[in-house]
C-alpha cells in the first residue's frame, strides 16, 4: 500500500517556531509586547539593557520550572513537587560544593538526583495509577520534609573555596554580556522545543495528553512517556535549584516554596491547556516573561508587594479568559 510513495508537497509542522500560525496562536506574545510598551512609557528606566537583563535573569528560574511543567501539563498531568525538588537538589549541591567536590561532578549528580526524584512521581502515577495531583502533592510534602531534615532547617553555605567560586558562575556569571541563568533558560527552551517538535517522544506527549486510550491502542508505551516527562521536569527543577543556590552561595531549606504555582501560571498564561494535548513551549516562555515583566514593572512603579499579588492574579485570570474565548 504505502510502497507507492512518490515525491509530494512537503508540509511544515503547524507548531513551527515563528510560522504564521504560531503568531496567530500567540495572543500572549502580543500581550507581552503591549505590556512592555505601556511600562516603557510609564517608566524610563524600564526599557534599558540593564533592566531587561535583570528581568530575564529573575525570570529564568520560574521559566525553567515552567518548561518542565509544560511537558507534564501537555500529557494532562500536573507536577506540584517542582519547588521541593528545587530545594532538595539545591541543598544537595550546596553540601557537595562545601565538601569541595568538583563542580563537574556535583552539578551532574544533582541534576541526575532531580531526574530520579521526578521519575519516582512518574512511577507512582503510571504504574500505581495514582492521580498526578495526589502523587506530586505527596512528593512535594515528602521532599520538603526530607529537605528540612537534611538541612536541619538551616541554610547550607557553599563555603569560600575555589570550588565554591566556580560554582557561583551558574548564578552570577556572564557569557557574551548575558547572564548565565539566561543562557541556561535559552538552552532549556530550545531543547524542549526540539523535543516536542522534532522527536517521536514529543509527538507521543501531545497524543497522550489528547487521548490516552487511543495512544495506548496505537502501540505506544504510555507509562514510559509519563515517567519520561516527570523525570525531565525533575531534572529541570534541580537545574533551577542549582541556579538559585549558586546565586545566593547557599541553599535555603525553604527555597522554591510556592514556585510550582508560578510555574503553572506561566504555562497557562502561555496558552497551554490544563486538559492536555494542546499547547506550545514558546507560549510558556512568553507566559513566564509576562509574569516577570509584571513583577519588575510593579516594583519600578512603586506598587506595594501586597497589591502586586492582586494585580498578578488579575492578569493571569485575564490571560486565561482571553485564551478560552478564542478556542
Amino acid at each position, binding site marked *: *500500500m*504505502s510502497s*507507492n*510513495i*512518490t*515525491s*509530494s*508537497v*512537503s*508540509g*511544515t*509542522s*503547524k507548531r513551527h517556531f515563528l510560522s504564521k*500560525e504560531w503568531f496567530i496562536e500567540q495572543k500572549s506574545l502580543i500581550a507581552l509586547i503591549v505590556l512592555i510598551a505601556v511600562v516603557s512609557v510609564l517608566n524610563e528606566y524600564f526599557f534599558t539593557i540593564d533592566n531587561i537583563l535583570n528581568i530575564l535573569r529573575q525570570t529564568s528560574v520560574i521559566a525553567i520550572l515552567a518548561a518542565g511543567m509544560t511537558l507534564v501539563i501537555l500529557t494532562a498531568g500536573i507536577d506540584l513537587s517542582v519547588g521541593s525538588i528545587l530545594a532538595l537538589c539545591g541543598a544537595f549541591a550546596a553540601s557537595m560544593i562545601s565538601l569541595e567536590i568538583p563542580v563537574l561532578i556535583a552539578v551532574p549528580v544533582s541534576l541526575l538526583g532531580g531526574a530520579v526524584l521526578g521519575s519516582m512521581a512518574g512511577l507512582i502515577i503510571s504504574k500505581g495509577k495514582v492521580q498526578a495531583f495526589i502523587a506530586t502533592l505527596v512528593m512535594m510534602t515528602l521532599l520538603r520534609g526530607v529537605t528540612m531534615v537534611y538541612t536541619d532547617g538551616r541554610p547550607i553555605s557553599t563555603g569560600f573555596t575555589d570550588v565554591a567560586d566556580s560554582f557561583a558562575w551558574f548564578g552570577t556569571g556572564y557569557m557574551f554580556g548575558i547572564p548565565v541563568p539566561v543562557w541556561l533558560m535559552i538552552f532549556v527552551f530550545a531543547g524542549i522545543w526540539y523535543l516536542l517538535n*522534532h*522527536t*517521536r*517522544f514529543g*509527538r*507521543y506527549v*501531545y*497524543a497522550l495528553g*489528547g*487521548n490516552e*486510550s*487511543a*495512544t*495506548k*491502542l*496505537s*502501540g*505506544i*508505551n504510555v507509562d514510559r512517556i509519563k515517567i519520561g516527562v516527570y523525570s525531565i521536569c525533575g531534572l529541570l527543577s534541580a537545574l533551577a535549584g542549582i541556579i538559585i543556590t549558586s546565586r545566593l552561595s547557599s541553599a535555603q531549606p525553604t527555597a522554591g516554596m510556592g514556585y510550582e504555582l508560578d510555574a503553572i501560571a506561566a504555562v497557562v498564561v502561555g496558552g497551554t491547556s490544563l486538559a492536555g*494535548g*494542546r499547547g506550545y513551549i514558546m507560549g510558556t516562555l512568553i507566559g513566564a516573561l509576562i509574569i516577570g515583566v509584571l513583577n519588575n514593572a510593579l516594583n519600578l512603579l512603586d506598587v506595594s508587594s501586597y497589591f502586586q499579588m492582586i494585580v498578578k492574579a488579575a492578569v493571569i485570570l485575564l490571560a486565561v479568559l482571553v485564551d478560552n474565548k478564542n478556542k
Partner: protein
Amino acid sequence: MKQPILQLNNINKSFPGVKALDGACLNVYPGQVMALLGENGAGKSTLMKVITGIYSLDDGEIRYQDKVVSFNGPRESQKAGISIIHQELNLLPELTIAENIFLGREITNRFGAINWSLMFEQADLLLKRLKVKHKSSTPLNELSLGEQQMVEIAKALSFESKVIIMDEPTDALTDSEVDSLFVVINELRDEGYGIVYISHRLKEIFEVCDDITVLRDGKFIAEKTVASMDEDTLIELMVGRRLDEQYPRIATTHSTVCLEVKELYAKATHGVSFTLNHGEILGVSGLMGAGRTELMKVIYGALARESGDIILNGQVINPTSSLQALNHGIAYISEDRKGDGLVLGLSVKDNMSLCALKDLSKGWQLDHQAEATSVNDFIRLFNIKTPSMDQIIGNLSGGNQQKVAIAKGLMTKPKVLILDEPTRGVDVGAKKEIYQLINKFKAEGMSIILVSSEMPEVLGMSDRILVMHQGQISGEFSAKEADQEKLMACAVGKNNNEVAA
C-alpha cells in the same frame, strides 16, 4: 394538503468559510414520522441546532403552530413543545429514572423540598405508557441503552412535546430494542405527535417513516412520501449520483492460512478458534456485547489473554501489547473513533502517522519530509476531504475521520488488518469508498477481519462469516450459504446449524 405543525422555510446559516445551510426546508406534520436524510455534513445537525436556537439563523423563518418563532436555546424550545433526543444520550447515569426525567424542574412542595412520591408516581406513569419494565426509582445505569433511550422519550413526553426529534436513535441499540423503539414511535404517531427521525440506516426509514426530506450540502433536495421511493433512488437523492452496487465484491482465490487462533480464552472470550487465509475478508457478525471487540483486542494484544494461542504465518506470537502485535503485522482499527481510535485534538497528519512514527524518523528525530509525503499520499489515495494535513481531525466529518483511522493502520504495513465497525456513523457515499478501499487491500493480498453489526455489510463484503454469541463462535458460513436469517439465528444463540464452511 396536510398542515405542518413545524415548518422551516429557506433557512440559511453560514459559518466562517462554510455555508452550512443554504435554503434548507423541513416540514413536520402531526401524526406523521418525517425522515431527515443526508450524508454526513449535509447540514442535518446544524438544522436541528437552528430549531432549538443553539445557532441563530442568518435568513429564513421557523413557523411553529402557525406562528413565526425563534427560540433562545434548547430550554425555550423544549418548553414550547419541541424535544430533541440526541445521538449521545444526555442523561446522568448515577441518578434515578425519575430524577433524570424531571431534571431541572423537579416537583417540589411549597418549601422547595422535592416531593419524591409525586415525582416517582408521575414518572412511573410515563414509563408505563412506554412499556418500560422498571420502577422510576431505579438508577439509570442499571438500564440497557435501549431502555435509557426510552427514558429520553419519557422525558420528551413529560414536557408535553408536540414535536419529537430523534437523532440516530438506533445507533447503539440491539435489534430487539430497535423493534420496541419502533412500536413506541408508531404509538406516538397514532397519538398525533410530529416526529423527525434522523438515521443513516435506510432500512429503518422504510420501516417506520411516512415522509422523507433529503438535504445535500445544506440545500433542500426533496420532500417525498416513503411509498413513492425505493432505496436506490433515495441514495441517489442523497449523494447526487447513482451508486450502482453497494457492495462491490471481488473474487479472489485464497490460498494458505495467515492467522490462526486456537482455543483462545480471555475475560469475555470463551474458547475461540478460527483461521484467516491470505487475501481473505473474514466477516465477524453478532449482536452488541457478543464479545467481538474484546476478541479482536485480545488478538491485537490490547487485552490480556488467559490461554490459547495466536499464530501468525505458522509462528506463535501471543502479543502482550499492541506494540508487539503491530510489530508482527497486525493492525486494529477501533470501533470507537472518539474513545480510543483517534486523538481528536491533533491534526490529520499527527493522527495518521502515530503508529508508524518509527519508520518515519531518523534515529530519534522525526523525518518531517518523509512523514508529510506518506500522509499526503494516503490523503490522495483515500480521497480524504481535508483542507490540509494540518487540519485538526475533530473538524472532519465522520467518514473522513474513519478514512484517516484506516490509513493510520495501513501505515504500519500490516499483514492482518482488523476493522471494527469501519462504517459506523459514516454516510453512504463514504461507505462505498471505504468498501472499495477494503477490496483493494484484499486484492493486494492483505488478510482482513471485518467486524460489523450491519448484516448486509458482512454478507456483502465477506468471503467467510463467523457469528459470535456470548464470547464464543456460534456459527461459521461461507459467503454463498449465508443469509440474514442464518446469521441472526446464530447471533441470538439458536445453535441449530453449526455448519463449517
